């Protein structure tokens, strides 16, 4: 181009930008109006736009160069097949169009050479045998495997049904398919995968280029089971290298975490890849976002990072183009994805294969339910985040002071003695006196925490007394296992209230063990301790374990104590709370209402257990999105608690924290903030500085600050909170929808890393 041309280009360039950003129709109008201003310019632009059209029609620069090793194979004969022309290229090898050289069949087929670096030089026999198994996979949506063999030069190849068409993602975009049509097409893919799974064949390498849509609109899956064929070759000595190679070949874009970490591959692996595929079809983006990544980064993201929600992905860069290709707008897409589709895709992309859909069919069922506007089976993750913000209270709320401690532990002993002496049987009298002495001895021992000779001036804290007592109880009171178990139970309660859940757990487990040995599995004390243990597990976020143990306790109590016994009702109420945290809200609400009704009748409306059940039910209603009902019930609860126990009581504080969250969900940020601040001020006074409940309040205050646009304050609060929360209950910050407004801030990444480190440190430390 001459200098003159270059100058001219410089002038035209900005106009060209404008022209190219308009639609055809807009462009025509725009050019017409430009004609009036500068007809010469308009003519030149038209010329360049014609150039564009020509380039487009020719497919100019559409296909870039790649590097091919070795000689051209066109025309060569491999086995019974003659190579016609190369069709394409994948990580696993190159693909050729071929036909039978002996002319026995007319049909054309695709011949795939497998990458030698992946398979090595392998035995022909074995390869053919594996191939035969795959060849039996017969389904209208699966491309048939016709033959398998090894070329004279030692390169293994597969002969496949030749499928002409477009990759599913390109097909959807080129036909501007709407979301529903995309899902229907995707469902056809699921049918094929389900068929293969039923035949015990896992695909392992599902990605758009392996899902072809033919001109007639039928879906054909390619390369079924071939990844396994590759992975299984070679002896164990080569395994490491092969795994590495396998990871590379299996395009990390669609690989599930377990494929990258070398864990067991199951049908859930395909579920994951299908989830990524659905995400790409719906949003045009990979769940890890569209930013460029090295394979290493991608692997890291797949294995470690939580996937974002569809509805958020669709709002990122290029969303308008994405929406246009789906014949809608990005805002409409976002609204459509939010909720059920977010939840469905999220469930397929779980890091833990067990948390994904149990089968491709279950996945397909949920998609069909979505299309029919029915309730889906997957529970939203946001629920779990919300749930973490709600406070589950423990039944015995004791604010720790030395006095309270004595009351808690001594009280147990006292009641026990009274109960026993009430029976006043002569033959027991001596034993009872012995028991009283033993308890007194033990309790006196509790206070000998520091050696007066060594450290006379030191104040003994209640915590030290408790720590010593919980040590002593392991060996002490051996002759009286019942008292020992009850003491352990009481101390477990105190530890739970202190937020020291692991210590509580081990004490309670021990208490159950001791009591079981002494009085049997069906003893009411054993059962009640089981329920308490469940509560401690809940505090640690171990909901499934908690549910199991509480159900066990409930079953026993119903049988031994009866369905309306106060203990039975307590456990029922606790179970309702656990179910709510697991996201099983309907069940929880039903159970919660039943408990509340019974407790009001049996125990009275002002009984502390009744009040706890009110709080639990209010929280559940909040999680169900029934905010007005929740707010009303929680309000009643708080009024009762303030009147009966005072404003500083832990139970009152927990109800306040829950109420604040409901207000937050209602969008009443100022009120939420005020209530949280009030809660925090009291917690700071009555609880230890690093108590998890206090940390939770701080976290929630951080969310309110984020929502109110006060990002400095938010980051400072969230950082503090994460330091003090117990690791399992640290929210997954990067996926917490309440923090969406912070995503653009560079400090956010640090916060995510901070939270992740807390999770990791938990994962490493043994329980």
């Amino acid at each position, binding site marked *: 181009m001459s200098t003159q041309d270059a100058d001219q280009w410089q002038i035209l360039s900005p106009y060209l930008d404008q022209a190219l950003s308009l639609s055809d129709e807009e462009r025509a109008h725009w050019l017409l109006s430009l004609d009036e201003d500068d007809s010469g310019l308009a003519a030149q632009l038209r010329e360049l736009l014609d150039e564009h059209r020509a380039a487009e029609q020719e497919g100019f*620069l559409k296909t870039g160069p790649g590097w091919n090793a*070795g000689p051209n194979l066109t025309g060569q004969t491999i086995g019974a097949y003659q190579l016609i022309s190369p069709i394409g290229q994948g990580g696993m090898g190159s693909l050729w169009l071929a036909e039978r050289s002996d002319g026995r069949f007319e049909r054309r087929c695709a011949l795939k050479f497998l990458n030698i670096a992946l398979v090595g030089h392998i035995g022909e026999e074995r390869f053919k045998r594996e191939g035969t198994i795959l060849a039996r996979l017969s389904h209208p949506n699966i491309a048939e495997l016709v033959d398998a063999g090894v070329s004279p030069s030692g390169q293994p190849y597969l002969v496949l049904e030749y499928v002409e068409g477009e990759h599913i993602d390109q097909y959807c975009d080129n036909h501007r398919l709407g979301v529903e049509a995309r899902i229907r097409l995707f469902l056809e893919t699921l049918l094929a995968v389900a068929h293969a799974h039923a035949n015990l064949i896992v695909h392992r390498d599902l990605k758009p280029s392996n899902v072809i849509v033919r001109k007639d609109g039928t879906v054909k899956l390619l390369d079924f089971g071939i990844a396994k064929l590759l992975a299984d070759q070679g002896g164990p000595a080569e395994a490491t290298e092969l795994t590495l190679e396998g990871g590379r070949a299996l395009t990390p874009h669609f690989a599930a975490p377990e494929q990258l970490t070398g864990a067991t591959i199951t049908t859930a692996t395909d579920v994951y890849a299908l989830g990524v595929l659905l995400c790409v079809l719906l949003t045009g983006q990979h769940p890890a976002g569209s930013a460029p990544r090295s394979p290493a980064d991608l692997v890291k993201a797949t294995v470690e990072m939580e996937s974002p929600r569809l509805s958020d992905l669709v709002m990122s860069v290029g969303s308008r183009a994405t929406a246009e290709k789906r014949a809608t707008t990005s805002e409409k897409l976002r609204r459509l994805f939010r909720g059920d589709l977010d939840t469905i895709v999220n469930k397929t992309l779980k890091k833990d294969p067990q948390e994904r859909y149990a089968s491709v069919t279950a996945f397909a069922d949920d998609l069909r339910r979505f299309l029919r506007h029915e309730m889906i089976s997957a529970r939203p993750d946001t629920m779990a985040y919300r749930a973490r913000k709600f406070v589950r209270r423990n039944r015995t709320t004791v604010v720790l002071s030395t006095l309270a401690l004595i009351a808690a532990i001594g009280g147990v002993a006292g009641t026990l003695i009274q109960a026993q002496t009430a029976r006043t049987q002569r033959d027991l009298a001596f034993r009872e006196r012995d028991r009283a002495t033993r308890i007194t001895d033990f309790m006196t021992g509790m206070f000998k925490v520091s050696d007066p000779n060594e450290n006379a001036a030191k104040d003994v804290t209640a915590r030290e007394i408790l720590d010593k007592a919980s040590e002593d109880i392991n060996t002490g009171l051996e002759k009286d296992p019942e008292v020992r178990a009850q003491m352990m139970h009481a101390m477990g309660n105190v530890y739970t209230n202190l937020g020291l859940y692991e210590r509580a757990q081990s004490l309670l487990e021990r208490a159950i063990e001791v009591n079981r040995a002494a009085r049997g599995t069906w003893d009411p004390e054993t059962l009640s301790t089981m329920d308490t243990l469940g509560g401690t597990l809940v505090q640690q976020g171990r909901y499934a374990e908690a549910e199991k143990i509480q159900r066990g306790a409930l079953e026993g109590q119903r049988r031994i104590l009866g369905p309306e016994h106060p203990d039975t009702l307590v456990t029922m109420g606790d179970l309702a709370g656990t179910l709510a945290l697991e996201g099983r809200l309907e069940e929880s609400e039903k159970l919660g209402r039943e408990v509340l009704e019974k407790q009001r009748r049996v125990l009275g409306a002002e009984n502390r257990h009744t009040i706890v059940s009110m709080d639990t039910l209010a929280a559940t209603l909040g999680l169900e999105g029934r905010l007005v009902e929740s707010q009303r019930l929680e309000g009643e609860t708080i009024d009762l608690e303030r009147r009966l126990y005072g404003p500083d009581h832990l139970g009152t504080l927990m109800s306040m924290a829950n109420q604040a969250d409901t207000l937050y969900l209602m969008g009443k940020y100022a009120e939420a903030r005020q209530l949280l601040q009030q809660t925090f001020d009291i917690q700071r006074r009555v609880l230890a500085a690093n108590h998890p409940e206090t940390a939770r309040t701080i976290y929630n205050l951080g969310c309110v600050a984020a929502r109110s646009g006060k990002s400095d304050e938010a980051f400072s609060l969230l950082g503090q909170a994460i330091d003090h929360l117990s690791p399992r209950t640290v929210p997954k910050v990067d996926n917490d929808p309440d923090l969406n407004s912070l995503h653009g801030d560079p400090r956010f990444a640090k916060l995510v890393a901070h939270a992740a480190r807390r999770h990791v440190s938990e994962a490493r430390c043994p329980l």
Partner: protein
Amino acid sequence: MESTLSSLIAASEKGDRSATEALFSTLYSELHRLAKQELARHGVAVTLSVTTLLHEAYLDMAARDGPSFPDQARFMGYAARVMRGLIIDHARSRQAQKRGGLFEITSLGSEPAENAIDDRELSRISDALDKLAEVEPFLAEVVDLKFFCGFSFAEIAGMRNLSERTVQRMWEKARIYLHRQLRNSSV
């Protein structure tokens, strides 16, 4: 390799022309070596993706060069230009020798083979691209990244901190320029 790529890039960005030359020649030989190595590993009838090669080159060099190595986006800017040189040189040498050489340039992806560009065309595209680089260097860079190195619009947008739409528009403009240039020069 002792004067590290990091230091060469730093010097080059300060306007040291000899550093720029050294940088490009170092990158050239590195990428060449890597390509040879990869091709040897893969065997018959396998086409290597340039993108994969570049990613690996980056990981490889960054690991050797240490923490001062530039981020991937900056690296790709340099490497893409060098990669084009490597591809073109190879295409030209093949034209000269007719056959043989280390590797063969073919089309990439699952496009039908008819769309494959021949070596001569590739060479002409590169010449036109050199001219474009004088007029609008950013457009030329997009072509290097997209056409020669196989990066997607989204990836390029991420590297250059632009919207995907902008990158796509830049690409279309570049295509117009190159198409016209090629048509004119063939007449």
